[in-house]
């Protein structure tokens, strides 16, 4: 199976000032699922188009298993794309849709028939061969699109927001199916998404893309729990940052002194972050607390999000109780073991 290497990819679209990709390098190990996570317009989809050969890079190289593929025409690359819409050919039956890629290769009829049935079984729709695309639900259409992509045994499977137009229940169902099939076949897969939880749930590796550059990449748990720097931390939903000098285990933060368990090992400026679910609110001061004022609270079912002000700064805290009246002065507890160090910009 295929290992993908993107090397210094650069792409600017005509009549657009900012480049869509700026010398981006990234490696995807064979058999793994890499999620590209980032806001819309960050260049994620461009990466897929370059790999598929629908677009050409201005500079840089793309290699499958160390071999450059830039000179191979798009239809011989074995890099299959799936989009938000299934794009099943409306004039073909489900079975003929799946068979499309095999017909392009000139595979014989008998093989096509068995392969199509095998794929229908694989995506869990064994009875659908003679349906028309219009007769299928959105989730079923995406399953057939997946079968159509997998039947050609592609080197790389690329998914461009394939779940984002589906209902939550269907979406989760399909996410699990894709993950199961990807593991089963061991096919190298790239998933483009702007949904953080989707990326974390599905990927072996998550790459954060912003404005055409790679911000960070790491396994999901590591990225979520220990994002390397402020930019990555923000994409992981963190908005509480503390800076200051550390002496011993005391951080002289902009809000006041706090105890930390992790120390930078130097006396200079340090940057710390803490996840919103690790912050706690209390009516009494504690050893590691700061006085704050409750601004507002939002009931979210499984938790309550409370916004508190600390001087000029507004922070979000996840709590389990909804008893924080607005304007009340309370205390924000920052457990030292959850304060972690971030890399400083430029270091």
């Amino acid at each position, binding site marked *: 199976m295929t290992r993908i290497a993107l090397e210094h990819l650069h792409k600017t679209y005509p009549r657009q000032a900012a480049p869509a990709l700026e010398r981006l390098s990234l490696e995807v190990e064979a058999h793994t699922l890499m999620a590209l996570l980032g806001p819309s317009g960050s260049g994620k989809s461009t990466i897929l188009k370059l790999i*598929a*050969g*629908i677009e050409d890079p201005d500079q840089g190289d793309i290699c499958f298993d160390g071999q450059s593929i830039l000179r191979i*025409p*798009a*239809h*011989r*690359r*074995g*890099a*299959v*794309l799936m*989009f938000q*819409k299934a*794009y099943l*050919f*409306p*004039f*073909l039956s489900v079975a003929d849709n799946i068979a*499309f*890629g095999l*017909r*392009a*290769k000139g595979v014989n009829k008998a093989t096509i028939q068995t392969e199509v049935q095998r794929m229908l079984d694989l995506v869990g729709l064994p009875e659908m061969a003679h349906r*028309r695309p219009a007769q299928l639900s959105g989730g079923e259409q995406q399953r057939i699109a997946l079968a*159509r*992509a997998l039947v*050609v045994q592609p080197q790389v499977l690329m998914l461009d927001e394939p779940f984002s137009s589906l209902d939550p229940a269907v979406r989760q169902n399909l996410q699990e199916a894709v993950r199961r099939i990807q593991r089963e076949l061991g096919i190298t897969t790239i998933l483009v998404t702007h949904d953080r939880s989707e990326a974390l749930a599905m990927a072996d590796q998550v790459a954060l893309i912003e404005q055409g550059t790679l911000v960070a990449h790491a396994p999901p748990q590591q990225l979520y729990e220990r994002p390397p720097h402020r930019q990555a931390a923000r994409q992981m939903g963190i908005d509480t940052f503390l800076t200051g000098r550390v002496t011993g285990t005391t951080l002289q933060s902009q809000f006041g002194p706090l105890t930390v368990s992790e120390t930078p090992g130097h006396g200079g400026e340090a940057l710390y972050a803490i996840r919103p679910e690790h912050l706690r609110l209390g009516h009494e001061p504690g050893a590691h607390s700061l006085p704050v004022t409750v601004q507002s609270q939002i009931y979210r079912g499984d938790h309550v999000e409370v916004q508190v002000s600390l001087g000029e700064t507004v922070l979000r805290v996840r709590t389990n109780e909804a008893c924080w009246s607005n304007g009340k002065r309370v205390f924000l507890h920052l457990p030292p073991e959850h304060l972690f160090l971030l890399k400083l910009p430029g270091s």
Partner: protein
Amino acid sequence: MRVDRPTLRRWLMLTPALLVTGVLFGVSMYYGISQSLGYLPFIGATRVSLDAYASVLGGATPAGREFWAALGFSLWVTGISTLLSAVAALLLAVALSHRRRPAHQATLLALNANLALPHMVWAIALLLLLAQSGLIARIAAALGLIATPAEFPVLVRDQAGIGIILHYVSKEIPFLVLIVLAVLRTQGHAYAEVATTLGAGPWMRVWRVTLPLVWPGLSAGALLVFAFIFGAYEVPALLGVSYPRVLAVLALDYFLNADLNRRAEGMAISLIMTVVVVGLGLLVRRIDGSER
């Protein structure tokens, strides 16, 4: 039966159009058929007969002698023009659909300008361009290919209907290109991209993806083109010869005759033309319907 308000409102909105079309069209069909059967009570003719049809389809009258040749000529001119313009339009649209936007807009404009030009103007332009002393003959003479007009091939007012066919091919290509381009611009590219990543080369994309995608629009457009050419009078009258003539020219010639029998024959011919195109329309609908 109770009619709810939205239903009532909907049919009220449709009434003017249905009424005008229905009355005008219905009245014309009623009087057309009556006249072809010789039934015109207000001039005292009340005997209903199929004489006009009999003499057109098999009689020894002038109409009967010319009808089958005219039908064949009409079908030849119409069929070949429709076929050529549909094939050319498909290929042109595929070639044009990939181009950049400014060029595309200029093309759209040029195509629409051609559509807006009346058929008579176009026919006259072709006449001046292709006649034996026309512009192209002059170019041929300047290149030393011919010396006198008589050496230039007869391309308009010719026996085979080449002038008429050239007219309709050049005038209907833009019409069909616009139909096909509209489909390709809205959904063609996504499907082409999917097909490419699945391993389809350029030709497979055209035959297996583009053609099926545009087929409903193209076949409906081609049917419209066929019906239009089959029934049109001006162009074959301007670019045709006196024999063979197309059915429309034959029908009008007879209809404008002072003799009432000739008029009935003219009317009968035009109604036979109607049966041919409506029958073809139903056939195409049926084939298209059974395919999906």
